[in-house]
């Protein structure tokens, strides 16, 4: 039993890690704590529905459609909502993302109806049995793809020039502007990437469950994940996601599904008291 829970916890945790990573990218670039991250994930699932069911696109084009759609959505959000608000206080910035998630939910329900949908993408769906652990291929695929995306992002972030400019902008807005960085483009790119990562997570989640706006609640687990991992830390987001996935599976497996929240949010509260910068983050350089 234990190994079963650990396996599915790690697989789910990889998806959370992916969504949380998208969250961190957005947060690092624009200091926006994105409460809509869960809804962006849901958007990914509905992009998949649109491409695969409504447009009848073949699988590779479906993937392209999801990525392009998510990218455009992220850019539009940045220019329509985030930029006009221009680095205001904490609450307006949080609230604009909440408003965004309310709007997105309403639009999705208007277009697709409120009822959950079934979507079967041509992903591996068999089951291996390894000892007493049933290993679903879908879980494995989700974990592998999530890790690939995370790896890809880290290479981009650490090694490419665009990644460098992104890190510079995250470090200091004024210095970035004075170095000639076109901050708007960088920020828009960060939103695009963050949305794409969430959307990929959404595609996998909607394969493990039905497609519905209620997936948002699962996506919201990215919030404790990033805080547990350390808000500013890219590896922290990924590890935090894994941890939350594990806790969730163990808590719902051994105790009850309802107990999940308690086992995630009580540790969150403790971490806020003991190590507000997260398990894997560091106290910020140069902050008083």
């Amino acid at each position: 039993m234990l190994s079963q829970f650990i396996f599915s916890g790690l697989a789910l945790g990889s998806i959370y890690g992916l969504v949380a990573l998208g969250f961190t990218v957005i947060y690092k670039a624009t200091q926006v704590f994105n409460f809509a991250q869960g809804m962006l994930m849901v958007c990914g699932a509905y992009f998949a529905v649109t491409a695969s069911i409504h447009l009848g696109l073949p699988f590779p084009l479906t993937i392209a459609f999801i990525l392009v759609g998510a990218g455009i959505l992220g850019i539009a959000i940045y220019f329509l909502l985030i930029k006009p608000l221009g680095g205001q206080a904490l609450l307006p910035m949080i609230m604009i993302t909440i408003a965004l998630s309310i709007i997105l939910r309403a639009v999705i329900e208007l277009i697709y109806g409120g009822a959950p949908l079934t979507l079967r993408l041509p992903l591996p769906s068999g089951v291996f049995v390894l000892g007493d652990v049933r290993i679903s291929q879908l879980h494995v695929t989700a974990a592998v793809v999530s890790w690939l995306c995370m790896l890809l992002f880290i290479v981009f972030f650490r090694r490419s020039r665009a990644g460098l400019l992104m890190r510079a902008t995250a470090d200091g807005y004024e210095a970035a502007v004075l170095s000639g960085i076109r901050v708007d483009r960088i920020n828009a790119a960060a939103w695009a990437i963050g949305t794409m990562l969430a959307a990929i997570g959404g595609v996998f989640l909607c394969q493990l469950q039905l497609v519905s706006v209620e997936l948002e609640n699962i996506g919201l687990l990215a919030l404790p994940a990033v805080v547990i991992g350390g808000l500013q830390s890219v590896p922290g987001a990924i590890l935090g996601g894994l941890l939350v996935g594990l806790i969730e599976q163990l808590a719902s497996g051994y105790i009850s599904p309802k107990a999940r929240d308690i086992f995630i949010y009580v540790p969150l509260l403790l971490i806020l008291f003991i190590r507000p910068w997260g398990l894997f983050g560091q106290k910020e350089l140069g902050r008083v």
Partner: protein
Amino acid sequence: MMSPCNHESLLSVAGLSVSYGGKALVLSGIDLSVGKGEIVAILGANGAGKTTLIRAISGLLKLHGGAILAGQIKIGADDTTRLAPETIVRLGLGQVPEGRLVFKNLTVEENLDVGAAVLPREKGRRTMAAVYHLFPRLAERRTQLAGLMSGGEQQMLALGRALASSPRLILVDELSLGLAPLIVRDIYAQFKTIRSEFGTSMLIVEQNARLALDVSERAYVLERGEVVLSGLSADVATSARIHESYLGVQAEASHG
């Protein structure tokens, strides 16, 4: 007293008035120019408006809640009065802002890389090499996080980053702030080299008037947002006015 500017003008500011949030004017009717290859100093007491002037030139006013109410700023032939800062950088303006704005979580090399990012790759590499040549200390600390360096080294890095974009003109705002006199002298000693090697003109804001007047050819003195005195640095240095109101205060402050 006004010295006729016999250089070709690189930066020209005419009739510039600025306020923050529509309140009282912080700068009113400033006229100023920097010729090609010139080093020009701006002096003035705290709150005189020096930083504000720098911000107006580099396009950063808006970020700080200020606005240009009147006047014009030109860099070379381009009118930059209302351009965005990142565009102005691309027209050849580098800046070492007040308060050591380096990217603290990036390494020294990455900091310079960001500075050079506005140039084509090959040219960027060359200017970076020149910066390392100018400040060997930066070369030694290439892989160190900027935030972990000493204040003087960070200031050096800020200057290096500005130079890495191979600007025609750099603005330096209170480089000496909070640094030991020795390292300030070290950096200032490089100013003439910078001009000859990078072909960069400089506009420097400095509280330490003696230092600034030593290194510059011409100087402007700001008081409550207006230019009250300008001319050749040597003349400004001997002017009774600056002795009383500025060098005098400076000397007292540093002794008392």
